[in-house]
């Protein structure tokens, strides 16, 4: 495989990974809105229908050591195809609609006719997420404390 091909593949994978992350971390209502913007696109074909299942979450001892199985989380996944372009949705919680919408947006995001507009919507979602993260952090940091040790007088 020529270097360009390998880089191209890696870049495409990275773009998909980023799209999927943005779609998973965004509320389903936002994905409904985006999907409705692209209602005129070709009918998506369901390759693997949305389903809910278990993902066993793994932790690490002390956060950096050997892995152990912590417990399961419910997740939903879906695979669709838009004119042969595959889209994958993998989201948390038993929300098959969210997984379907994520798969649809991922497919559109990889389709040359819709990639541009989809990416603009995703950029807006990322900004929204960044605001949420900042807000949460501000809330937490507001409760930051500095304890002062009391020095016992020796007189």
């Amino acid at each position, binding site marked *: 495989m020529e270097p360009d091909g390998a880089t191209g593949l890696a870049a495409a*994978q990275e773009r998909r990974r980023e799209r999927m992350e943005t779609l998973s971390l965004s509320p389903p209502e936002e994905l409904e809105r985006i999907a409705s913007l692209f209602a005129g696109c070709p009918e998506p*074909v*369901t*390759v*693997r229908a949305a389903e809910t299942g278990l993902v066993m979450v793994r932790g690490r001892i002390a956060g950096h050591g050997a892995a152990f199985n912590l417990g399961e989380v419910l997740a939903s996944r879906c*695979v669709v195809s838009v004119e042969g372009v*595959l889209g994958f949705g993998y989201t948390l919680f038993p929300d098959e609609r969210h997984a379907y919408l994520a798969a649809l947006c991922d497919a559109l995001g990889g389709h040359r006719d819709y990639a541009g507009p989809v990416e603009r919507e995703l950029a807006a979602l990322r900004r929204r997420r960044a605001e949420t993260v900042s807000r949460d952090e501000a809330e937490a940091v507001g409760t930051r404390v500095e304890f002062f040790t009391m020095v016992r007088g020796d007189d």
Partner: protein
Amino acid sequence: MEAVLAGIAPAFRDHPHDSQKVFRLALEAMARPARFLEADFAGLFPAPPPLDPAAAALILTLCDHDTGLYLSPSLAGAAGYFSFHTGARPCHPSEAAFAVAGDLSEAPPLDALGWGDEACPDLGATLVICCLPGGGGAVPPGMALRASGPGLGTPLEFAGHGLTEAFVGERELMRACYPQGVDVFLTGGSLICALPRTTALERSRQGGRGRMRVAAKAGGGQGGRGSAGEHRRSGQGGEGECT
């Protein structure tokens, strides 16, 4: 990964209902060994899979991430498809819960498959052989066989399409180790037939070709969700004939 992605194709249109129908058929086939059941398996898939629709329907219904799956060489290309839909991992015959063979010549010898153990004989493998007419391959004339055992009130003349003397002999040896053993499905297009490990097969005393009798015909078959795989039980002892 793009190569894997290229092999992805849709499976059942309506997984919960379609897989339940197929399961019911498989159950019925096992309960009434050596009888041929017919259903519109191809109608369950929006695009027919590259391999025998009846075999594909069985694997999609019966396999999951816990079942090792062995595919014979001519079917190896479908491994990605089954993994994608069921989570079943490809493996060697000895580790397989399910093994699928394009025809009998590709099937692993019975003793290469797992037979379960004394504590858990149910862990024995299930072997699916795509050797019935309608399966796409060349169909040798059916051996005239007689089937007997549980599920067969009286011994039944059975047309062993795609089977060989050697296979019949292997099964006999295996039956001596009951309850451990391997259960077999024969499939082809719209037909399935089960030979559980309890069924005895011997050369029929009647001469001539075996005639294949279709024990039960699934209703409808006009495509669409409701009809494919719908199963009507034929009357006791009554059997439709199909040569």
